[in-house]
């Protein structure tokens, strides 16, 4: 979706301000927001892509005004409500008013949490078809404006680039955010700054995105 999260090339946000000796967390509620998000996610009721879609679905004014963990927390509340794990009264009142719903995976134990952090959840899958592109292929990112989740940033849509790396078949976020499983090939596609930003672009700049095969079409050489 063309939400507030798609920030590449936007202007007016001012300088980057690194904080000296920045702590990992700025408040104890941030620690709990992170841990609750990971522990609730481990119940298996939504994918990482549904989680991202919940964040980018926030109203743009809220998204841009919120701190990062506030965005996570608002999205977590939304997912818990949508998946019927909590109801509105429980979210607003902090009091249990309904019995727990069954979940796909059991409650995360301390040992399970250690395992989850140490092992992660790999996203590479068996390909269901051969790769359409190879290193060196000239490709164009499609012009698409899906209402749902996508990982094709607006600044790359319609732009021509070159496949630089082939990462194998991965979970396709656009499908995964709808609860569907559809492994597709993943590539690194590099674009010249001139192609992305036009006249006046930095001549010594190249920008790459990680592009899933459904985002790409073959680009015929210019005659």
């Amino acid at each position, binding site marked *: 979706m063309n939400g507030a999260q798609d*920030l590449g090339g936007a202007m007016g946000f001012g300088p980057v301000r690194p904080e000296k000796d*920045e702590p*990992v967390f700025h408040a104890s509620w941030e620690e709990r927001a992170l841990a609750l998000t990971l522990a609730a996610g481990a119940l298996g009721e939504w994918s990482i892509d549904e989680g991202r879609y919940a964040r980018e679905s926030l109203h743009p004014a809220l998204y841009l005004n919120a701190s990062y*963990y506030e965005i996570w927390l608002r999205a977590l*509340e939304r997912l818990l409500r949508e998946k019927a794990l909590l109801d509105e009264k429980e979210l607003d009142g902090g009091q249990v008013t309904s019995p727990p719903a069954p979940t796909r995976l059991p409650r995360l134990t301390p040992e399970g949490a250690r395992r989850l952090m140490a092992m992660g959840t790999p*996203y590479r899958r068996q390909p269901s078809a051969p790769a359409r592109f190879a290193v060196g292929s000239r490709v164009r990112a499609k012009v698409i404006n899906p209402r749902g989740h996508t990982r094709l940033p607006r600044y790359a849509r319609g732009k021509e680039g070159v496949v630089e790396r082939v990462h194998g078949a991965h979970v396709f*976020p656009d499908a995964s955010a709808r609860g569907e499983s559809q492994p597709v090939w993943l590539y690194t596609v590099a674009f010249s700054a001139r192609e992305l930003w036009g006249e006046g672009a930095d001549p010594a700049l190249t920008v790459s995105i990680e592009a899933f095969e459904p985002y790409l079409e073959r680009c015929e050489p210019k005659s």
Partner: protein
Amino acid sequence: MASCACPTEHGRTAIDGYDPAARVKALEQVLVEKGYVDRAALDVIVETYAREVGPMNGAKVVARAWIDADFRTRLLEDGTAAAAELGFGGRGGEHLVIVENTPKLHNLIVCTLCSCYPWPLLGLPPVWYKSPPYRSRAVIEPRAVLRDFGVNLPETTAIRVWDSTAETRYLVLPLRPEGSEDLSEDRLASLVTREAMIGTGLALAPAVAAI
């Protein structure tokens, strides 16, 4: 936080009156009571990222690559497998890709769409990495972003920006600083900052690190 240099992130009130500290407290209470989460598991997650995982991990990987050419080759070939040799891997780093700076090419990592970052090697991302100024500008004017960090590269140095739009996670292998030839692996790791591994900084000169 009054001491914080990022006014858009802290110390401001949500436009709809949302109070995250109160909300998260109530949410944790309800989730625990309904049996969905175990407080001890939450504590493990917080401890892991507050203490055990951080840029010191990535710095060890970089230092090893500087002194061991075979490891460097393996690291650039398959970042996930090479980092695992040193015991690093896991959530947020299932598919690691390490990209190497050269005298002619400088790499910079960003996630314009959210906050993708190589957790097992760098820990949780700093606020600036997740914030609109960095995410918006890194792909269109990276040289100006580098100047915000006090890094001035010659115009002739090519810049390569990697937008982390998938579960592949990137780390920069910075240039080994001059004058570091005789340092031990541990001392070399102390020259490797988080910013150097994101690409918004360079590895420290040995004299600077000693101060």
